[in-house]
């Protein structure tokens, strides 16, 4: 993982530069497109966004693809194939400020489950003609390959947070995206803790906030979609779930979800694998 999002900063808008709208590029690697579609989901704010920035490259939204460089690039997806290794370097070269969006781009995504398996075996099992498939052994986050200026977490990302990142970039402030536990969001909205009151396993205490504590509000434990927060004490939390009756295979599954390849979760799930 790269530096935590809060330690990076958005460059101030350069008052010397001629007034022109910042150019936005939206790129994807191995992913489901759900995160970049959050931009279109903005509906009410979309016109304002299009008014404030020049959407120069966004295959999901416009047919013309304008060449770089881009002031702000939103990068979705993980690096999963040999071509992507090249492409991501080019995206970096063309981008002044590069923001990765979503669990795939920031942690390798659910497809990173193959990092614990034999990918050749997967290919044989899944594809009739595996020789047509060119893939890497692993699915890895963008930051494993190029410098990333800011990471926006989530599976999918929150459209409100995406708007905040774009706004913060346009105005020149640090995005208000807090690296703190989901628990703070639960408590601020008055949701009763499902760990304490229901005995459910919930990754909220070790997971990066941003979803607004969605799952606990619907009586489910947090799946960790936003990945580990800083100082994620996963070992202590796993110990608590073990006391509550969770077996080792369950603990592996719990930490090995959408962001399972993020370092803190990866190490924790590996600690519960059979020796």
């Amino acid at each position: 993982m790269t530096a935590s999002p809060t330690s990076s900063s958005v460059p101030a808008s350069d008052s010397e530069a001629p007034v022109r709208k910042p150019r936005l590029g939206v790129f994807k690697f191995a992913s489901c497109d759900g995160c970049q579609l959050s931009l279109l989901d903005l509906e009410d704010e979309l016109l304002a966004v299009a008014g404030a920035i020049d959407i120069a490259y966004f295959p999901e939204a416009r047919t013309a693809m304008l060449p770089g460089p881009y002031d702000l690039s939103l990068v979705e997806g993980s690096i999963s194939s040999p071509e992507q290794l090249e492409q991501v370097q080019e995206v970096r070269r063309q981008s002044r400020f590069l923001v990765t969006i979503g669990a795939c781009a920031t942690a390798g995504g659910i497809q990173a489950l193959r990092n614990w398996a034999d990918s050749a075996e997967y290919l044989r099992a899944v594809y009739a003609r595996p020789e047509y498939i060119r893939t890497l052994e692993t699915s890895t986050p963008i930051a494993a390959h190029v410098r990333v200026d800011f990471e926006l977490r989530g599976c999918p990302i929150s459209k409100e947070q995406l708007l905040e990142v774009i706004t913060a970039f346009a105005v020149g402030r640090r995005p208000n995206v807090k690296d703190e536990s989901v628990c703070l969001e639960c408590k601020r909205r008055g949701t009763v803790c499902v760990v304490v009151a229901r005995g459910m396993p919930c990754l909220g205490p070790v997971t990066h906030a941003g979803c607004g504590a969605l799952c606990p509000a619907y009586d489910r434990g947090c799946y960790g979609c936003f990945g580990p927060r800083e100082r994620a004490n996963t070992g202590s939390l796993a110990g608590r779930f073990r006391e509550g009756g969770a077996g080792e295979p369950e603990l592996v599954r719990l930490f090995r979800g959408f962001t399972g390849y993020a370092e803190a979760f990866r190490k924790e799930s590996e600690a519960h694998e059979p020796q």
Partner: protein
Amino acid sequence: MEVEVKAEAKEDARSTVRAIDRDGLERLLGLLREEGYRTIGPTVRDGAIVYDEIESVRDLPAGWKDEQAPGRYRLVRRPDDALFGHVVGPISWKAFLFRPRETLTAAARGEGGALEFRRAPFEPERAAFIGVRSCDLAAIAVQDTVFTGGPYVEPRYAALRRAAFIVAVNCLESGALCFCASMGTGPRARRGFDLALTEIEGRFTVEAGSDAGRRLLERLGAEEARAEDAARVEEGTARCAASMAKRMDPAGLPELLLGNLDHPRWDEVAARCLACANCTMVCPTCFCSTVEETSDLTGSSAGRVRVWGSCFTEEHGKVHGGSYRPEIKDRYRQWLTHKLASWVPQFGTSGCVGCGRCIAWCPVGIDITEEVAAIRASPGPVPDVQGLPLAPVPSPLPAPRAPAASSVEEDLVPRPAAVTAAVRETPDTVTLHVRPPQGFSFRPGQFNMLSLPGVGEVPISISGWDGTAVEHTIRAVGPVTRQLAALRPGQELGMRGPYGSSWPVDEAKGCPAWVVAGGLGLAPLRPLVRELIGRPEDFPEVRLIGGSRTPGDILFVREILGWIGRRNLQTHLTVDRAGPDWRGSIGVVTQLLDDASIEGVYFVCGPEIMMRFAVRRILEAGVPPQRVYVSMERNMKCAAGFCGCCQYGPLFVCKDGPVFRYDSVAYLFERSGF
């Protein structure tokens, strides 16, 4: 601003004890609603008893009981259908007084870039709190002190608090995690309520604790309680207190905890602690907050929103360049020492009311009473509590620590101020001259909060006064400072202040005055130097010692050169590295302190590591710590003592500091993690 009026009127009211049944309680709720109160009370939701709007007695948790253990809470059926047969749940009354999210200010950028700031609209709702337990009455009193005890009053809290009507309930059964009896906060509600109920076998005794309560009781027209009912209230609450299994010995906690800052127990608890912040969220007294800057895409309309924060987040201790409390151990120790130790000198009481919420709602069941007991069982070898500021911190400095009576409302609204000049000091540092709002005056060492709507707000020390404008020397290191440093004459920024304590100039009268600056630390010292050298009869011997990274980083070069020849000033500059044409010293500032005068008064400001070495050298020379002053930096959101982010042990850097006499911070100064 007096919000604590209810307590006074209380004692003489005990005579009026009435008795009502469940219908009477229904009538009471109806009267409150008729008087315009939103009635909020305990109700079952999501497997817990929470506080939420109740419309009728039917919404109360009849027949439910909460079984609690560390990290565990379950609702179970009671053998009876008591309405208040539970204790406290995950929500405390602070959610309705110090609300989780509050918009503070709104700002707009008009034609031509003119700024406009205003206080966000605020409608204090009138709420009646039904079922406030004695521990929570104490917690409300604690937050009254935090937010209205001065020198500043938080206007939103004060308004909600004044509008609230409090119906307490006496506890006759203790919860497994309750320890109010040891903290002296319960279970008998004795003050701070308008009405207090005791539920005995389906009926309620009601006593009034305020004029508003008495008036309501009159309207209710209830019958006088029988003498034995009144007696059963005392007996029942006493029995409850005696049955309380959980205990915490509050004796000498400040000395115990602050004297054992290196106890191995902190490492043990840190291995379990998730730093998830749940304890601080459920704690009815925890008051820390952070501020979010919001704006539209163009930045033309912006706002600042206060949200609940926590000392368990990294952000709480963060300034540019890193966090003062990076480790979980630092954060847990900060929380516990604040709650049980630093709180005492800050606010005159413990920050713990013994409600047990932090124990129940800790996902891993960390028990505050066990943590304290463990440290008490094996205190460090010789707890050195000498010099700990355990009594309410005396203020040797002319700090704005006014008594509550003369408190001022601080609504945190900046005022627009225009830049009159921008002087580049070094490649990354600019001095802005800003025409302040009318009536502005400051003392050397104080700071202002400077802001740009949509971008953010930062504390910046005052580096001078040019006759018409206040000077701020700003290094462009983050988004806010970068944009502030790029301002041009005629442009506006937001300003509020000044805040904080100042250099006690007159302490140095007739003594050698040593001004020791590292890097940007010279900025808040410059107005001091100007005053010292401008009064040669009072300060015959001033020595300025300044350290910088390189000669190009030295601030105020022109002015410093202009001081050459002043008969009461000697200037010594040193740099970490320099080219061959540099004629000053090379090396750290401490080498220029070898001849530190024992009669001198020292004013020190710079990076914390530089101040540590400098102060060490000064003290080694035999200078008493009372003659040394330092200026501290911490995260600051409000500058008025509300947000809690700038705490340094028992001190708030914003209102007790930033300038401290060294002996008041000595015991933390050599430590990290605070």
